[in-house]
Every structure is written in C-alpha cells, then in structure tokens.
C-alpha cells in the first residue's frame, strides 16, 4: 500500500518549525534584555509588534478577554502572514492554499466566539438568543452560527489559491511568448520582466491584506457578541 502525502504537509511543518525557531530566538533576546535599557534590534521589533496587536485588539473587546485574545491574534498574524508570503521563498504548496489549514483556523475562531458569548452573556441568555424572535427561527439562528466558518475559511483559502494559480498561468503564458524569440527562446525572458510586480501584489499585498482581514474579523466577531455596557 502506498501512502500519499500532500505536498502541503511538509510546507506546514516547515513554517511551524521556522516560526518556532524565530520565537525561541526572540525569547532569548527578551530574557537577556534589561528593562531600563533602550530597546534596539530584535527586542524593538518584538515590542513594536506586540504594541500594534494590543492596540487593535483593545478597541473592540473588554479587558478580561483582551488578556487572553492578544497572544492568539499575534500568533494568527505570524502564522498566516508567513504562510501567505512563503510563495516568495520558492515554496510551491503554500500552507494557506490548503483548505484544511484555513478551515481549522476558522473553526478555532468560531469556537472562541461562541464560548465567549456564552460565558459573558450567561448560558440562559445564550440559549434564549437561539430562539429569537420566535421559536420557529431556531434553524436559521443555527445556520447563522455555522456560516462564519464557511465564509472565513473560504475567503482566505480562495484569495491565496487564486493568486498562486494566476501566477503559474502567467509563467506558462510568458514562457510560451518567449519561445518565439530566436537564440534565447528556452530562457523565459518575458516572465522575468513581468513577474516581480505581480508577485508583489499576489503574494505580499494580498497576503498582508487577508491576514489583516482575518484577524480583524476574529476580533470584531468576538466583540460583537459581548454584552454592551
């Protein structure tokens, strides 16, 4: 029996290892750091990242959730952004273009939303909210609880996947055109000229944008379900 393993598995493991090594290095640097010194280098980078994440999280949720949600949002940022731009480093199977990865991330987010909603509104109010405005609306309310899983996961998945497909189509077309040039026909000269700008959009800008949207939606969905004070 031959066991087939998707190529994505190796890139997922690779991203995880790279992220873990990077975080260990930052942890070393932070432990050596004296709080009364002026931060510079890696420590400054880490502090700025944490400050930015804290500022975006704090606007929508209360202080108690903020303590626990901040690290999750930070790790989402690191993982999704690094995965999305990993196409630039020559990885063919980008982790976020595998539906299992994005579905897992979306399920974690939706479980967090429902858990926090039940915890801060009280179980009684939470169950009561399922039957609003009348008893017959139960199936619709259940569907509206499930639909964020589909929309969150497919948004990230489809954006990153379509970027990869368009880039590979572009390389094929450009190698077809450059095969008409005599002498250097085997060298893909048009691809070298056209590709960098499109890589900038489809890998870098699109990856950053989708990461921002995914994390913002996580924060906003959690904040929306909380009771208004």
């Amino acid at each position, binding site marked *: 029996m031959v066991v087939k393993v998707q190529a994505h598995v190796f890139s997922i493991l690779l991203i995880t290892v790279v992220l873990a090594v990077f975080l260990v290095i930052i942890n070393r640097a932070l432990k050596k750091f004296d709080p009364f010194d002026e931060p510079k280098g890696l420590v400054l980078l880490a502090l700025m990242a944490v400050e930015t994440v804290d500022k975006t999280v704090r*606007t929508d949720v209360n202080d108690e959730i903020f303590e626990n949600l901040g690290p999750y949002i930070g790790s989402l940022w690191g993982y999704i952004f690094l995965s999305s731009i990993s196409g630039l480093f020559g990885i063919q199977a980008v982790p976020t273009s595998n539906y299992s990865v994005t579905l897992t991330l979306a399920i974690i987010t939706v479980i967090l939303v429902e858990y926090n909603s039940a915890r801060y509104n009280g179980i009684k109010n939470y169950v009561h909210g399922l039957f609003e405005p009348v008893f017959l609306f139960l199936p619709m309310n259940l569907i509206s609880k499930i*639909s964020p899983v589909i*929309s969150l996961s*497919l*948004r990230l998945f*489809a954006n990153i996947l379509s970027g990869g497909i368009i880039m590979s189509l572009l390389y094929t077309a450009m190698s077809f055109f450059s095969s008409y040039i005599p002498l250097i026909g085997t060298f893909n000269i048009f691809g070298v000229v056209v590709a960098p700008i499109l890589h900038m959009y489809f890998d870098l800008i699109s990856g950053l944008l989708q990461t921002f*949207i995914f994390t913002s*939606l996580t924060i*906003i969905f959690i904040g929306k379900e909380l009771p208004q004070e």
Partner: protein
Amino acid sequence: MERGIIAIAAALAVWVGFGTTFAEGSVARQAVESIGKNPEASDKIRSMAIVGAAISETVAIYGTLIAILLILVF
C-alpha cells in the same frame, strides 16, 4: 462534452462577484467619506467597514464554493 458544460457552469457561478464588486466599492467609498467628515471616529468606522465588506463578500464566496463543488464533485 460534459466536462465542458461543467466548466461553463462553474464560470457562470463565479459571476456573482459582479455585484459584490459594486457593493464593496460603495462600502469603501462611504467609509472614506465618513472618515473625512469626522476623523476622530476612524477606529469605529474602520471596524464597521471591514464587517460590512466581509458580509457583502459572503455572496461572492458562496459563488466560489459552488464553482469549486461543480469542478471537484461532478
């Protein structure tokens, strides 16, 4: 023959993005306008704009889902 018809159906399913484009454009336009009117509320406006764009994008995402299902299942 059958594969070709399925491919055409999948391409038609992605056409729901046509309306979504206008919807998201109008969300962005209104957000920019209201930030111009009162810049101090920009944090709230940004989160509302992202939610609005995300919800109106859902239709396009369902179109993508149907296209993927058409290609992979049949």
